[in-house]
């Protein structure tokens, strides 16, 4: 079996890629994709810790399922917001969406 650290490194790499995507993309949908990568990385960590530290229990998997449900809700609401903004402002470029800027 691969050591626990390998899983954690992969998850850290995926998290940092997602963070970079969420911070550096112009397009709102691309930002949302970065957030999805981050949530996946978190789930790998939860399941890896559950598997390696408490293999008899399912706590890690249960938490991962909660994250999955929240991620699904986040994707649905986020994409609905993007569609609504595209309808009213005709853009999904985050630099043009500055309604709340003073």
């Amino acid at each position: 079996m691969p050591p626990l650290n390998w899983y954690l490194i992969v998850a850290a790499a995926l998290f940092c890629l997602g963070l970079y995507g969420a911070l550096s993309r112009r397009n709102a949908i691309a930002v949302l994709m970065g957030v999805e990568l981050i949530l996946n990385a978190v789930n790998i960590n939860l399941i890896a810790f559950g598997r390696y530290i408490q293999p008899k229990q399912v706590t890690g998997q249960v938490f991962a399922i909660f994250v999955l449900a929240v991620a699904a809700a986040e994707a649905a609401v986020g994409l609905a917001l993007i569609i609504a903004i595209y309808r009213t402002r005709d853009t999904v470029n985050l630099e043009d969406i500055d309604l709340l800027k003073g």
Partner: protein
Amino acid sequence: MPITTLQIVFLAISAFTILCGFGVVTSRNLFHAALWLVGAFAGVSALYFMLEAEFLFIAQVLIYIGAIATLIVFAIMLSRGMMMGRTVMRNYQWGISAIVSALLFVLLVFVLFQINWPVVQGAVSPNAIADIGEAFVTTYVVPFEVVSILLLVALVGAIMIARER
């Protein structure tokens, strides 16, 4: 230590996953980014399988690849006019974001190797899926109900936000 077959499989899957992650965040074409995202989800689901989390493996394929990736592709197509012409996908702060992300990665790996995790050898519970179901209706019944209400409210809210006025 010699590398076992399982570790080679793990390395291959992780290399694939991280490559797909790179594709997601660097691809100039948003549609290609969505396809890379599907690959990354598939790689993560394979990692779940290697961690003997079969239920999560199936849930990952169904929910992420089947639902979320499809939803993202729909959103891309619905707002297509804006995406295809533009080639610059990065904003002005991409350089500093890259530096911050790389530093965070180095920091995380550094911290990981400092900690001695209390790893326990042992097989997983033979009926883990039944255990998950039981945990949801006993120990975690309140968070389970809260998350189902959250999901319901979020989906109703998504329809309300996105509907034609």
